[in-house]
């Protein structure tokens, strides 16, 4: 029996050493240690031995089995390592091929800019208001202190619809609609589509504006300057210079054009800023008392400011777009870049 065990052991160890594949080693395990394996068979024979010999041989069997087992484990381990190594040797993909991605769509740059501006003003406590695009002359002009036949109406070429309706030429009528609906404090911005009867390289008959309005008990022109400085710095970068200069709008007084230091040349002067170093981006001013009169606000005890800007202009500056018409051609080769 001892001899048999020794023989079995040396045969097994040889076989294990000679096997390199996982499958062959698994076979060896089954053939020796399985239910019908050789060692198992020998162990079953223990019962026929003398009671005195039995523990000794039993121990021997166990040690042979342990030896074989541990040889198998380490051989299997290295066989598995070899398998992995072999896989790593051969398995190759071309990682430079494009990935399988979910198609990405894009928002129109006008929507992007509107969203960005609205979120900046949301942070300053302004909520979003809206109004109709087909508007009454009264809201678009008269209540904003453009009397009929006033030369200021020449500033805005108007598309007319019948019955004193027109396509709003600016988002300012939303100011009127808001103030008629609510009492101060008012803090709104109104993004929207507007129309002017004008079409060339720099004018589109349809474009977009954002209007802002703040009315409260002690709002100053300095506050307007403060709010617009914060806004332009958030939109164009912290150090963007801002300049207000006198201008005229019938519905604000004092009125201002607001320039920012040219985002293209940084104020040194270039083609985009016509060498002035400044870019005009919005119009603003303190709400004119005449406007308050039309919405039955008491001009003596409240004050406020309004401002308005063209979205396309800002989109063009932000993204370096040179021709406004690109924004309405809807060429996906353009739109997919956003």
């Amino acid at each position, binding site marked *: 029996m001892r001899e048999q065990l020794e023989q079995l052991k040396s045969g097994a160890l040889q076989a294990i050493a000679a096997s390199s594949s996982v499958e062959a080693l698994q076979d060896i395990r089954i053939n020796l240690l399985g239910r019908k394996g050789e060692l198992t068979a020998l162990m079953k024979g223990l019962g026929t031995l003398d009671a005195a010999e039995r523990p000794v041989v039993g121990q021997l069997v166990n040690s042979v089995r342990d030896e074989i087992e541990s040889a198998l484990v380490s051989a299997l381990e290295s066989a598995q390592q070899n398998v992995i190594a072999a896989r790593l040797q051969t398995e190759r993909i071309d990682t430079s091929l*494009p990935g*399988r991605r*979910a*198609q990405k769509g894009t*928002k*129109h740059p006008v*929507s992007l800019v509107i*969203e960005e501006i609205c979120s900046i003003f*949301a942070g300053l*406590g302004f*909520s*979003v208001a*809206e109004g*109709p*695009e*087909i508007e009454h002359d009264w809201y678009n002009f008269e209540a904003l202190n453009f009397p009929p*036949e*006033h*030369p*200021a109406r020449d*500033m805005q070429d108007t*598309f*007319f*619809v*019948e019955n004193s*309706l027109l*396509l709003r030429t600016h988002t300012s009528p939303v100011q009127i609609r808001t103030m008629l609906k609510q009492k101060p*404090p008012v*803090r709104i911005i109104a993004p929207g*589509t507007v*129309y002017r*009867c004008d079409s060339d390289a720099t004018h589109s*008959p349809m474009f977009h504006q954002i209007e802002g309005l*703040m009315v*409260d008990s*002690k*709002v*100053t*022109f300095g*506050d307007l*300057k*403060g*709010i617009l400085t914060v806004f332009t710095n958030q939109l164009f970068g912290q150090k963007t210079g801002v300049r207000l*200069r*006198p*201008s*005229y709008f019938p519905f604000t*007084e004092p*009125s201002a*054009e607001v320039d920012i230091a040219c985002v293209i040349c940084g104020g040194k002067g270039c083609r985009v800023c*016509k060498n002035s170093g400044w870019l005009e981006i919005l119009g603003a001013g303190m709400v004119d*008392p005449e406007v308050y009169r039309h919405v039955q606000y008491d001009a003596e005890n409240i*004050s406020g400011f309004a401002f308005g800007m063209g979205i396309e202009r800002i989109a063009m500056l932000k993204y370096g777009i040179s021709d406004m018409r690109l*924004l*309405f051609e*809807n*060429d*996906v*080769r353009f739109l*997919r870049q956003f």
Partner: protein
Amino acid sequence: MIVTYNWLKEFVDFEANPDELAALLTMLGLEVESMEKLGDGLDDVVVALVEEKRQHPNADKLSLCRVNNGTEVLDVVCGAQNFKQGDTVVLAQTGAILPGDFKIKRSKIRGEESCGMLCSDKELGLAEESAGIIVLTPGIAPLGTPVFTALGLKDTIFEIGLTPNRSDCLSLIGIARDIAAKLDIKINYPSISLVEGPEKTDAVIGVTIKDPELCPRYAARYISGCTISPSPQWLVKRLAAIGIRSINNVVDVTNLIMMELGQPLHAFDCLRLSGKRIVVRAAEEGETFTTLDNQQRTLTAADLVICDAERPVALAGVMGGLNSEIEASTTSILLESAFFKPAAIRKTAKRHGLHTESSHRFERGIDIDGVVRALDRAASLIVELAGGVLAEEAIDQYPGKIERTPITFRPEKANELIGIDLDRNVILDILSRLECQITQNNDGSAGVLPPSYRIDIEREIDLIEEIARLNGYDKIPATMPVARVVSDRPTRHQEIEKQLRNLLVNCGMTEVINFSFTAPDAAGKLLLSDSDPRRFAIKLANPLVDEQSVMKTTLLPGLLETTARNINFRSMDLKLFEIRRVYLPREGEDMPREPLCIVGAVTGSRDGDGWSRPNEPVDFFDVKGIVESLLDFLDVGGISWVTDNLDPYYHPGKSCRILAGRDCIGSVGELHPSVQKNFALEKPVFCFELDFEKLVKLSRTKKTIGAPSRFPDSSRDIAMLVPEELAAVKITDCIKAVKSKEVEQVQIFDVYRGKGVPDGFKSIAVRIRYRSIERTLAEEEIVALHKEIVTNLVDKLQVTLR
């Protein structure tokens, strides 16, 4: 408004250089839109003396000159013939760059050295054509002086973009006044020296104003025995600098004074005025009249005309008449200076499409108190340039004189609104620099009477603006408002619009923005019936072009045009959407409805030209999938997809309407082949349309979230043969009808036609996943439940199990 630096300097003695002046004007609200520096960069073009001139040895037409530029004597070859030795000429020295980027270099001309060029007017950009080189008056300036300096041509021309309120700045003097006020220096008003003859003006001519409402003031002067001739050079050049062509001495003076003082003037040939009378009246309806531009115009009763005893001689404030024009033979002149009602002039100019420098000023409002001053200034200048005798005392009919009252002004209110803290005296000083008259009221406020030319200043707020403007917007500190806290959040509308835009973008769609107007036949291209409400669009009264003449009632045509245009540019795989308003007229209301709509169009292949997956064309289910994601996101319940009552632009077999309960909220489908053709689209296009307003209403805000089951699931498949016309949804509905909580999911995982499936049938395979939230289901329970489902399918839908 065009002004020049030198001209302004005649009125205000400022120290600012042209660039500083431009910045100053812009910060005063007189925006300098462009500036042109005459003679800038031409300092190398100097006054020089021809000390010697002889024939070029190798060229008949050239001469060799020795030219003294004040520091050295240079050799210059010249081709001009109009000068001689000893003449003072203009030398462009080497290094000078003449207009047109013409660089002067040392060169050899036919073997002879030339160190510069003798220049003509044309070469310096001073004239269109010139016969020879410039020969200057001897001793005009020391040799070597830049010629633009020597000729007094060094100047800067500013183009100022005026806002409509500043009519007072439609003149040199107006702009000069603002500069003087800003810099706190004196303004020098132009001098008027009248030498009047013995004859009385009103003895020669008579003026009658029949319509004082439209013509509150009319003044006139009479000059006899004058001579019409070309204007002197200074006048020609001055007008040319601001873009006005010289006509003759009299007309040029009227233009010069209009530019200088802002008062439009008109000179009539007095001999051609019948009865030597002026009558200002409304035109008769249908009356005809030929203006100076040789256009016959038919007038209306709203037009104001200046007439002589018989007929109109001028369209008041707009343009004179051919019948009384100043001609070379004119010897006596009636000079008109008047004030016409702005709105009337504006209407007349608009009606006749005739916008002149004169009408521009009248319609914005001129200085009614400056009418006579401008008349006198022009008369004195005409007599100076054209000779003749000025009759004594101007006629001045002023029926519309109004006493103006001071504005109550509180300096502290100015500080409060602007957000500054100026001393009361400083504030009042600013106003007096603006030529306002100031009195003190008992209550501490001031009474401020603005000058008559500032017609834009009527209220306290107008004065506050002047304080802010003159003190400087740059001096106002930027502050953050102290405001009451208001709680507000975006409306559901706004929130959902933004979310849907995000969702569609995440579905791979690209947003487009088309114009809100379209062509009148856009609805026709969709095959809409004549009674379809979308055919009744709101029309623009004054469209730019026919293709943009009606407001959209549907976004689809625009999106399809965009699709076609992109395909023309070879972008074949498109997923486009648009979220915009449409404009729908409302019965009995003047304001239309402007609901927001969502449309999408998808065409081309599903994955683009990829390497890893088959390049399949998109189909109905791609678009339906997008719509499903959207409805799912908004949690709109009770959705069904029905194929009846489709819009005519859909393919009837591959499209459906979307119902939420019984309410139609949109549609999805393949474009009808005829419509596809109408939009010149070669490949099928799949579209969807959704009613945004309804989606917002139906979107459920509250969601109840259940915990997932922790017990094992068990799936069973059913494969069945069903008739082709049986909708798959009937099968899933039938399965769900058992209403068992244990049916966790029902999924159609295969639809098959072909081998083994008879014609007119399709094979549908469904997988049902069973699971309980409470316990592990016993095999017998599942079997029983599954059996019930299969029996239902066989009994109710007559499916054949495979």
